[in-house]
């Protein structure tokens, strides 16, 4: 090795050393996350419009506790505090949007803490969780406070809505089907963010167009719901129609924001189809046969558990390797 002066050609400052590639696309984790936050705004707005300003408080509490829990645990584990990547904000927002109107702030906070701590940080934080943290929080609330979380009382200050019961519960327990148009606009009973199909589609469309969310999962879910829901409907016209499945409850919200969560969905293209179809199948089965009116949350959590297996068995054949 000869002398190592950086020659006069250089300006004397240090050079950078790293592996190839030396170029990088514009996407960053932060950007992906904040895009999702942005996409959730229409839902937040619809929640406030249809259910009143109190809901803003619920959402804020959910976000604050999610972020706080993440930061606190990162501090405990002596990891760099990375809450600014926005993932905890998303968890909080999502959780805030899937609780019923006028939900207790204490419970919201508890769900947030549980979702982030047990649903995410225990697994090692961002990128390693198996289950969608927001849904974990919601499932915990559902199991812990089943009455509170299925109480769809309409706050008096809310705008006029068709019915306080959720369309799905109305159908299941009272046999009352809700028309499609209020489902699209969102002036029906339900969780904060899920009622307005319009707002959900607006945000979801944004995610799909920018490529933040993979289109395959919502597509597979819609196909699935028509396939499985349609089959049951044809067999038994009393069952909800696929269109009703599509717009009622949190199907769209789940399809756009929950199922497409990168961390907890499959990484392979084929896997995404399997995953989406699986969610739809579970969803239709739970909605039609189950004891609960709504099943999006459980369907997604259930399929989350199988994502590692899906990934494993749908991994792409290596280019040039003989297909088995």
């Amino acid at each position, binding site marked *: 090795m000869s002398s190592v002066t950086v020659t006069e050609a250089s300006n004397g400052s240090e050079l950078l050393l790293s592996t190839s590639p030396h170029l990088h696309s514009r996407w960053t984790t932060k950007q992906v996350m904040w895009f999702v936050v942005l996409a959730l705004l229409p839902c937040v707005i619809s929640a406030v419009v249809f259910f009143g300003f109190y809901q803003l408080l619920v959402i804020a509490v959910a976000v604050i506790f999610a972020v706080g829990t993440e930061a606190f645990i990162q501090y405990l*584990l002596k990891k760099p505090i990375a809450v600014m990547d926005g993932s905890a904000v998303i968890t909080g927002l999502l959780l805030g949007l899937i609780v019923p109107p006028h939900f207790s702030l204490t419970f919201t906070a508890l769900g947030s803490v549980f979702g982030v701590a*047990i*649903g995410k*940080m*225990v*697994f*090692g*934080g961002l*990128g*390693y969780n*198996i*289950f969608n943290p927001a849904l*974990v929080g919601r*499932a*915990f609330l*559902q*199991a812990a406070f089943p009455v509170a979380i299925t109480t769809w009382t309409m706050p008096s200050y809310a705008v006029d809505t068709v019915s306080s019961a959720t369309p799905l519960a109305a159908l299941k327990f009272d046999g009352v089907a809700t028309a499609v148009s209020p489902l699209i606009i969102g002036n029906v009973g339900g969780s904060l963010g899920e009622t307005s199909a319009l707002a959900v589609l607006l945000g979801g469309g944004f995610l799909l167009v920018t490529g933040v969310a993979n289109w395959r999962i919502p597509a597979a879910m819609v196909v699935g719901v028509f396939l499985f829901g349609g089959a049951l409907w044809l067999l038994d016209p009393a069952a909800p129609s696929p269109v009703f499945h599509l717009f009622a409850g949190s199907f769209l919200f789940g399809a756009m924001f929950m199922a497409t969560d990168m961390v907890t969905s499959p990484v392979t293209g084929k896997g995404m189809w399997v995953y989406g179809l699986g969610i739809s199948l*579970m969803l239709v*089965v*739970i909605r039609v*046969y*189950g*004891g*609960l009116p709504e*099943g999006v*949350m*459980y*369907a997604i*959590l*259930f399929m*989350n*558990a*199988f*994502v*590692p*297996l899906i*990934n*494993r068995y749908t991994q792409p054949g290596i280019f040039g390797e003989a297909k088995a």
Partner: protein
Amino acid sequence: MELILIFLSAALVNNFVLAYFLGICPFVGVSNKLSSAVPMGLATTFVMVITAIVTWLIYHLILVPYEVEYLQYVSFILVIASLVQFVEMFVRKVSQPLYRALGIFLPLITTNCSILGLALFMVLKEYSFVEGIFYGVGAGAGFTLAITAMAGIREELELADVPKSFRGAPITMVVAGLLALAFMGFAGMITV
């Protein structure tokens, strides 16, 4: 139709592991690798079906006619213990690697509560012979499903940055808890 419902009920709604806490030992112990979890699930299913058959016969042909139902625990467990020992010998003969992988858990399949649980529930629910078999297959399938999903998750978690003190059993229990939460979606679906 009834038979299918029995199967689904045992496999999903009233999953032995996640709803009844049966068979937790192998569920925690042998779920760290898919390559051992799947055989374990299949072995358990196999033993379950055989158990369902044999215990039904013993119960209905010996214990009930002679009114010695109080001997069910002792007689059932004797049957199960012997059966498991057969399976153990068989596996050992057939595949050494599998025998090594399942390690001490093969003898402990004897103490897999799910198997005795199956026999007892079957008596409790007064299943017919054929129903009993379906129940056994369903319970086995449920166990296999749970342990396979768990093994998949745990293999994935090998790559994850799980805090040190939570590696191994604790995270497995947490995952099982979350799985149980997810399985709650099936509640109220079938009640056979």
